[in-house]
């Protein structure tokens, strides 16, 4: 593989798979925070 192809493959994988990992982490944190808020306010 040429250097430019390797660089583009790494960029593609980092951006897209990294984007997936980051969006999963963000969603999970938000859900946990929402659950804590619900518990602390005593809301159902």
């Amino acid at each position, binding site marked *: 593989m040429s250097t430019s*192809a390797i660089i583009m*493959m790494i960029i593609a994988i980092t951006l*897209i798979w990294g984007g997936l990992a980051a969006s999963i982490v963000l*969603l999970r944190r*938000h859900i946990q925070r929402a659950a804590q808020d619900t518990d602390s306010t005593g809301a159902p």
Partner: protein
Amino acid sequence: MANQVREQWATRAGFLLAAIGSAVGLGNIWRFPYVAYEGGGGAFLVPYLIALFTAGIPLLVLEYILGNRYRGSPPIAFLRMSRPTQALGWWQVAICFVIAAYYAVVIAWAVRFTGFSIGQQWGDDPEGFLMQDFLQVAAEPGMVSSYVSGVVWPLIAVWVVTLGILALGVRRGIERANKIFIPLLAALFLVLVVRAVTLPGAMSGLDALFSPDWSAITDSAVWVSAYGQIFFSLSIGFGIMITYASYLRRGTDLTGSALVAGFANSSFEILAGIGVFATLGFMAVTGGIALDEVATDGIGLAFVAFPEIISNMPAGSLFGLLFFGSLVVAGMSSLISIVQVVIAAVQDRTGIGRIPAVLCVGGAIALASILLFPTEEGLYLLDAADHFINQYGIALAGLVVVVVVSWVLRKLPELQTHADEASAIRLGWWWPVTLGVITPLVLGWMMWDSLRSEIAENYEDYPTSFLLSAGWAVAIGAVVFGVIMSFLPWKRATTESAEEPADETPKVSR
């Protein structure tokens, strides 16, 4: 139905897996790699990512909001937004009917090829085997003349499994099936990719896929193809995501969910690109031919090129099982979502229960599918229906929806507030700009471009009479169906019952 409690996903993860299962389909495996290769290789990443953020994810968010806010299948969701727009919903239902009918046939082929892989029954001439021995394709396009039993019975099996899953309901059927399908697909495809990249010549294939040709990004056709790939591969524009989001609880993080589903779909496309081009590299090196001669997409890639490669590969049978097994699983999870749109619409409209709806509606789609496509003319009918319903069904409906919601009804601020109430990421100014300006411009350009080609020459050089009956009539028929259905009266309670049903579900944590 108005007074029945609407079904709900058991978990958010279950919804996300179903949404990903719907988006990840045959197009990810057999379309993306070639589109990327043709569109500048590594440089294609630029228009592709811009298309993802300026059309794919914004549209996905819009469909999630419509489903979640108005709590219904597309006809009732649009009706609750604004009564005259319900025709858009029925139009999408008709589109789903057509797509489901032919999509199931390709899965049936993949089922048979999974079996053929074991003995590599295509022999030395995979193309001849596919066209003559297996599909027994007629010499000329036309209407149904005789049936091909080798396709009929796997097609019946595909429909029995699909309708069986749908009969079990959203939670016990669709959600459970996707909890099995998606990890299974990921496992099958990962093993396939590991095998593919360790083949001789794999690196030359990856080099061809990722070497950037920066001049491509100045070509407007490449941008159209990037937006087209994002649009068609994300399962947007035909009401699936509206339907799936209608089973979500209020207060779900819709923007975050759309980001996960959108990135997951693209992640699978990258994986498919690596797997397919590593394999094509092996084919080019072992055959002593240039890669641009073996690179292809669609049916030619899956059912001609891959069988040939499998025959020339050590332990090719196992590779065949993995590849065609992946096609079956990816296809099934998408087919389920497409049929569910039609079933949900009829349930919402008539109030009948799930089992009768699955039997009547699913049975009708299965019947149309079995009567039309496992035939000697089936490949022509499938090709024409696919082309016209994609261009003048999905894409045109998508264009009309964004224009109506953004500019006619001016609903985007209200819908944005709905999403922002529960989402970690606020949508901001980019969402209405992408939906109100960029998406209509790009889809409008795609439509114009496609119509120009249609006028310049007959699609695939098919006879005009055949294109009129198998292509244009199908696409226009879907619009006419939508308009007629929108004039039929609804029960008043049904149209107004958009409130959250009594919560009988366990609290969702993930």
